């Protein structure tokens, strides 16, 4: 590496140029936020979640109608009171009394209706939110693992949270829209009924508002979206700075990053100011139109009153209605956006709910008894994630009860797939996998799972105490059982050295433990599960030698009295197995114990003779040579 011209590293140049390769935060690719305003397919599917609450929804729609009705009636009562009880001339003394009594009745009804409507809708929407989420979560527990393999957790989480939330919002607002539409038509109707000509004249300002909003909406939405995007970009950059702070400091990037972040934060400021302008520009428009409508009532209505062609009470009622009639238009246009958002979200929810379940229990599936013999057999198994590219080709072997078999072979030879098939994570395309003498497809997945324990290469721990994690599979395991298992795998000592022993909380994904320690815990977990068959994928990553030794010992304990299938990387493990199965390119090419295979002089012996402590340490070139050697013989 020769020394090149030393540039002033990192810095933003004096002319304001930013370093070409420096970025902070990522440009998030936003998902489609708005769909069609109405998508029959989505609505039908979502209806399935609403229908359990049909009664409640009906009640709340009825309540909304009553509520809207009372709102319409109140100005009429005031009008009655004025025209019959107070006008100059012949006031009827009892009219005011009647009006106030009617008013009292109406506001009582209003109170009841608003209470019923809001609480019923609010609760149903919450319930539905949780129902949809539960249905999706439950579905994800059953869908094929190949779907889960290729889908990011973050993406699923945004389905389970953001999209579900916008469905909730949708239900709440759609009931309210019913009220708004009725209110709008109600006001128009009542005004026309009170005085057709004055009504028509006053209402002429309504279309103006409609037209303005139609032009305004797409522009405003663009501005709001821009603000939303810059906001999430800026927040993303902050999150990155927090998570990557050590890398930032060790490479001394603070200065440049600050400038780049400033660019983003400032862009965010600008988009927000623009969005704010768009939001606020509607205020004077609505106010002016309201003023105009009132002015019309004063001039035209006033003259009519003077000329005795209109009661003064009607004029007052008009003034009251005018103050209300822009509200429904405002909220209806808002709800239009909510609908569109809900349709886009609904579409995505349906996609998840429609993911097919490949592996299902047969209707007459039998439960695998714990008394089964613990044998595992592959009979002519062919399998590929994509059937055109099989990763296992006509593989047959049998593992006898209590036997330990090591699966060995280069990367991509099909070891992990074979292991996944025993647990029926996937279904074979040809042949059969038999556990305890049954085809796994004839067994219930639940009972199969109870008899086949798996230890994965990357041990996954759940948030909760060490104790809870060890008894993950057997929720009723006692403290004694757990401690015994931990002692048996040699995890007890390090557990006791943790701050709270067995009650120590595991941080996210076991972040507070080393890989080796997590491995030991997952061994203990498998031991507590006490399954007849243990399938284990040995970790390839380096673990410090001290823990490594513990793990090797634990393996011995774990395999005692069980049928074991181990994807082995370490020679110590391989040599200790009863039998070794060598896979290459999806085919079983050698089987036998260490001595037999060494005597045969095949791939295994060549790999072994390369003298690496682990098969994974073998460099590609040498590995290729060894594999080639096999094809020549």
């Amino acid at each position, binding site marked *: 590496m020769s020394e090149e011209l030393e540039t002033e590293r*990192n810095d933003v140049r004096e002319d304001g140029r930013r*370093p070409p390769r420096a970025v902070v935060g*990522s440009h998030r690719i936003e998902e489609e936020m708005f769909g069609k305003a109405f998508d029959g397919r989505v609505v039908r599917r979502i209806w399935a979640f609403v229908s359990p609450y049909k009664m409640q929804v009906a009640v709340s729609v009825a309540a909304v109608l009553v509520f809207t009705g009372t709102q319409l009636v*109140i100005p009429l009562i005031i009008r009655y009171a004025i025209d019959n*009880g*107070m006008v100059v001339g012949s006031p009827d003394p009892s009219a*005011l009394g009647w*009006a*106030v009594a009617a*008013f009292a009745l109406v*506001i009582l009804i*209003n109170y009841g209706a608003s*209470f019923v409507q*809001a*609480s019923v809708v609010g609760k149903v929407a919450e319930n539905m939110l*949780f129902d949809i*989420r539960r249905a999706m979560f*439950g579905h994800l*527990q059953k869908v094929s693992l190949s779907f889960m393999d290729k889908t990011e*957790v973050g993406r699923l*989480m945004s389905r389970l949270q953001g999209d579900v939330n916008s469905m909730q919002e949708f239900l709440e607002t759609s009931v309210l829209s019913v009220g708004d539409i009725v209110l709008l038509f109600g006001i128009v109707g009542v005004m026309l009924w009170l005085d057709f000509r004055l009504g028509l004249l006053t209402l002429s300002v309504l279309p103006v508002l409609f037209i303005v909003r139609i032009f305004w909406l797409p522009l405003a939405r663009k501005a709001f979206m821009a603000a939303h995007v810059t906001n999430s970009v800026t927040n993303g*950059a*902050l999150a990155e*700075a927090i998570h*990557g702070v*050590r*890398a930032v400091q*060790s*490479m*001394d*990037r603070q200065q440049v*990053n600050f*400038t780049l*972040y*400033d660019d983003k*934060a400032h862009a965010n*400021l600008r988009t*927000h100011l623009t969005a704010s302008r768009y939001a*606020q*520009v509607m205020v*004077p428009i609505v106010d*002016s139109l309201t*003023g*105009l409508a009132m*002015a019309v009532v004063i001039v035209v209505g006033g003259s009519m009153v*003077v*000329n005795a062609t209109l009661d003064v009470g009607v*004029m007052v009622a008009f003034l*009251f209605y005018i*103050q209300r009639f822009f509200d429904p238009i405002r909220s209806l246009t808002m709800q239009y956006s909510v609908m569109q958002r809900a349709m886009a979200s609904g579409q995505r929810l349906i996609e998840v709910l429609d993911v097919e379940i490949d592996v299902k229990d047969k209707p007459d599936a039998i439960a695998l008894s714990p008394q089964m013999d613990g044998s595992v057999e592959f009979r002519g198994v062919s399998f590929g994630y994509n059937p055109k590219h099989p990763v296992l080709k006509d593989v047959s072997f049998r593992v006898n009860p209590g036997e*330990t078999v090591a699966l060995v072979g280069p990367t991509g030879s099909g070891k992990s797939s074979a292991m996944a098939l025993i*647990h029926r994570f996937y279904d074979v395309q040809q042949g059969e996998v038999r556990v305890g003498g049954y085809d796994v497809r004839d067994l219930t997945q*639940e009972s199969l*799972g*109870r008899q086949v324990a798996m230890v994965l290469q990357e041990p996954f721990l759940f948030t909760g105490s060490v104790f809870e994690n060890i008894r993950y*599979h057997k929720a009723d395991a006692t403290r004694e059982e757990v401690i015994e298992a931990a002692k048996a795998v040699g995890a007890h000592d390090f557990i006791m050295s943790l701050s709270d022993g067995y009650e120590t909380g595991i941080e996210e994904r076991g972040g507070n433990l080393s890989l080796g320690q997590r491995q030991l815990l997952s061994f203990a977990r498998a031991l507590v599960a006490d399954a007849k068959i243990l399938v284990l994928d040995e970790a390839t*990553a*380096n673990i410090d*030698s001290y823990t490594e*030794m513990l793990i090797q010992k634990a393996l011995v304990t774990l395999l005692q009295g069980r049928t074991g299938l181990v994807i082995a990387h370490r020679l110590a493990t391989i040599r200790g197995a009863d039998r070794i199965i060598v896979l290459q390119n999806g085919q079983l090419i050698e089987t036998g114990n260490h001595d037999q295979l060494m005597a045969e002089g095949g791939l295994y012996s060549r790999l072994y003779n390369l003298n690496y402590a682990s098969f994974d340490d073998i460099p590609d070139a040498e590995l290729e040579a060894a594999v080639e050697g096999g094809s020549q013989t």
Partner: protein
Amino acid sequence: MSSDAIGSAGKRGNSFAHVEAAGWGRGLSTLLRITRMTLRHPWQVTFAIGSTIIAAGLQLAIPQLLGRAVDETQIAFAGGTAGAAAEDTLWTLALVLLAVAILRGLFTMSQNYYSESVGHHIGYELRLACYEKIQRLSFSFHDQMHSGDLITIGMLDLEGVRMFFSTALVRVVLLSILIGVGAYLLISTDVVLGLVALSFVPFVAWRSSVTQLRLRATWLDLQERLSVLTRVMEENLGGIRVVRAFAAQAHEMLKFDKASKNALSLAHERVGIRVRNTSAMTFSFFIAMGLVLWVGGNKVMAGEISVGTLASFLTFMTILQMPVRQLGMMVNSFARASTCGSRLFGLLDLDVAIKDAPDARPLDINEGTLRFENVDFAYPSQESRPVLRGVSFEGRRGETIGIVGPPGSGKSTIAHLIPRFYDVTGGRITLDGQDIRKATLASLRKAVAVVQQDSFLFTTTIENNIAYGDPWAKERRIERAAESAQLHNYVLGLPAAYGTVVGERGVSLSGGQRQRLSIARALMLRPAVMVFDDSTAAIDAATEQRIRASMKKYAEDRLTIIVAHRLSSLMHADQILFLEHGEIVERGTHEELLARGGRYKALYDLQVRPGDEMLGEFGAAQ
């Protein structure tokens, strides 16, 4: 970033001034401090408050005008004025009303816009201050602070502070004018009717404040419960193989249902609180309205007031209704800004533990010699537990030092002390005789590169990731660094080669690939001291061998320090230090240490020849 961004950069002036301004007023109460920040935008604040006052005044004029109009018609109807004169008066009133309505609209717009604008500007300034602070705070702070908490401060708390001006301060002005002047107008017109019309105000104000505060408290609780639910789902989906492997779906559904019900019941409770409150507020408002109708109607009949006055009372009530209901939100804004602000300013006021000394000077490196002189160290959070004790060694340019020892012996700590991620608690570390605490941090970190155990990938292209420490780097250099780190061939196989986006939202790399990337990253830096902090653990031995071979020439120009537990990584070092309980217990070359037959030898035996007694045990168990 386009030229557009750069253009605006000129206009926005000195961003560090904003950062400094956010640090003003330590010790002042939080709300005062926020208020003081808003005053950095005096014109916008003036416009916002001025518009608020005018808009509120105009708002109050509307019921008066409507009342006048109604009265005019009544007087004319009763024959008090001639028809034409009455029409003229009505026209005048209508035009005045229209003008008032338009002006009110314009001033409300200005009020809203400027108060939001002040908030957005403060938000921008606080964001910068927050970002800068987080970037500078030292490792020991970040070790103890949950990243999630920092994110909460930087996003949610900041939001609470930003909104203070528009939702709290401006609202106070608006409400005091509407209620104060409004009450004066009503009561001066008719004491009894005025009091009746205002009777709902105290009740609604009290209800809405109490409710908002309760909703806020339960909201925090709900977030807590929802985050439990989120965790359950996230872990389930992330660990779906474990779930399936143990056939634990039913168990997981139970966990989900428990978390879900827990959140749902609170969500229901919150709906209840909200609904009870809104219904009660509306009801009390209508009761007051009914009373005004009753009392006012009687007064009209008795001839004490006109119909127009009654109408203006009723209109006034409808106008007052909304702002009074929002009083609770205003109270809530005060509470929110106060708690959010105290957390945010708490962060901004923190002292940075590791920073340039006042007399710091850039490092002057000639020889490139690193010395540890009797170094002691304990982490700030556990001062009573020494991690390193009396560690001394020296390394020169071209040499390689290997550090090995059991887990927790302090190996990685040594790697972290050299670039001053932490400061020593005793002794000193020097580079060419200069105490690193007296050098500028920037120059030190250019001189020392650490390849971390767990390297962080930024969500950007591979080339940007490799060039992270040298963003002006040319393509050729980046590729060469990748070649040396044995990453080049892998990268060429990716869909967009060096342009492939990696990280959280891009292609995910395996542990080994990440470590190779971070080696390439360090190679870009040309430091005087290169430290590998157990950074090849996930790379297989053969690849590591190749990396070492290709770095041979590179290593001639600098001191290399390798911390590892795999002996093959450091057997070739010029000097190997064996660390135990924070002390160097053995040192020498590989051969010397083997000959000595001590701890190093024991570790070597364990790693290179897996103990036969262990194999025996394994066999016996079968």
